[in-house]
């Protein structure tokens, strides 16, 4: 199952590394990644396309536990769910 995540992050040391670590550990493959820091450098918007053989989609819950994830939206084939 492939889906797209849009994340708004606090742009602090290692934030992208944390996000990517969770994606890997929870068994998802990164298919596409785009990261844009805000002009003032305090935020970062990240778009991630991920895939997994698993039918469950628990990744958003685990990402939302990262303290620097301020908002997260997930786009599946037919659905859109907003976290935060």
């Amino acid at each position: 199952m492939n889906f797209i995540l849009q994340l708004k992050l606090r742009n602090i040391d290692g934030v992208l590394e944390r996000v990517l670590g969770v994606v890997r550990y929870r068994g998802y493959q990164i298919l596409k990644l785009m990261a844009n820091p805000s002009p003032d450098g305090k935020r970062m918007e990240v778009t991630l396309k991920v895939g997994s053989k698993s039918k469950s989609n628990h990744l958003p819950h685990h990402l939302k536990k990262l303290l620097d994830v301020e908002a997260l939206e997930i786009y599946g084939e037919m659905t859109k769910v907003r976290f935060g």
Partner: protein
Amino acid sequence: MNGAQLIVKALEREGVDVVFGYPGGAIMPLYDALLDARFKHVLTRHEQGAAMAADGYARVMGKPGVCLATSGPGATNLVTGIANAFLDSIPMVIITGQVPSPMLGTDAFQEVDVLGITMPVVKHSFMPRKAAELGAAIREAFHIAKSGRPGPVLVDVPKDLMTAQVSHRLVADLPPQEASALDAIEVQHACSLLRDSRKPLIYAGGGIGLADAVDAFRRFVEKTRIPVVSTLKGLGSLPYDHELNLGMLGMHGLKAANTAVQNCDLLIVIGARLDDRATGKLAEFAPKARVIHIDIDPAEVDKLRQAHVGLVGELEPALEALAMTPSIPHWRKQCLDNKQRFTWDYNYPGTGIYAPRLLHNLSQQACDNVTIACDVGQHQMWVAQHYGFKQPRQHLTSGGLGTMGFGLPAAIGAQFAHPEDTVITVSGDGSIMMNIQELATLSRYQLPVKILLFDNQTLGLVRQWQELFFNKRFSSVDLSDNPDFCKVAESFGIPAIRVEHGAQEAEAVDALLNTEGPLFVHALIDPQENVWPLVPPGKSNTHMMEGVNS
């Protein structure tokens, strides 16, 4: 003041009364400042010991434990202890010294990327970049460690920040984190499932104790009169001798508990994560049950078993919302009859020490202020099965990570937390060697910790699996060249006794409960003794082996 003194002030402001650590180059300014601290610093003999002592302190106190280490090897030696706290949701604040800012990323002496190394096993971590940020970093670390689902938080401090001059500014209190409110529709749905259930069962997890929700949980049990099974970390949420307590479920669970799980039609999971050691083969776990899952962490609900209702939030209001009295006399009787039917048999055919019986007798004679800190292995399971806990904070056990070597340093932390209580480490001859250097810490601080070592001269649980599942091909489990443990203890200044006959079990129990000061009890047990029952790996909890030939 300098940054190191600011860290000390910030720790004082958090109400810290003891920190555990080990000095080294990059953290020397902080160790200098510690000389003037209002709290105690405990020097362990290895950084892993410091992390696990902080963990043990936190488990007993219900507030963050603190540990310190220098950069490089000091920091990497903490990692197992940090992971241990993370897997068991223990609040902890870890402060590591780091090489000075200008040298970061240059492979400087004793430089490792501890922030990167620990990312998967911390709840959060920081590296402040300015000395003025240190106060806020410490405040935030404590706030994060103890709020919501607790966990370890690491603050990595470059050495130059500790020596830089800063003004001491008070950092504002952080607002308490609001738990998400319960979903009213889900609560209604849960009530409806409970009303319709004829065979409900409560599955009590470690979250009950962590959330300080033991009283609310007990009120819920008394109101609903639903039988209860516990996970390893849920033990003590209901007193062991409570009528409705069926005991621990899972791989080494009690038959009455596993049978109830397999037959229930509604499972109310409270503060638990449905760990594989508890569920056995997931596809066949509680096959007839609908599931209500109550947890503060939304990531746990539906993670392994789809819940019919997930209640995400604080346990206390959720339990209050579900409190009702279903009419389940037949089911309750069935569960309690099974509990009577499958009681333990302490008649042991041999003449040697029988660990389950010794632990049972210890439990029967111990006061309520006894804390047991376990290592990992057969003895850990025997403690879970045969020691009767009345509170979850009495039982310090490495549940998630299963860390050999946890018991002794955790006991040290627990004894500093509650100096008047009796703290007993139950260990094995494999585990004790993993952190045996902490006997020096016991001795230095004259802590009255008792050590009960079950010595079977083998890595017992691994040997048991090799016997049962690897055609008795015993690989690297022989520990018959162990040192003389009594002499080892005595060389650290700790009195020791050796017991090897069943008739000496009473002497051992008496010594553990009535000796002043530290004591090492070396109990020789049969290397062939196994932990029963046992659900083989990958099997359902209905497949309980009760002996080698079962």
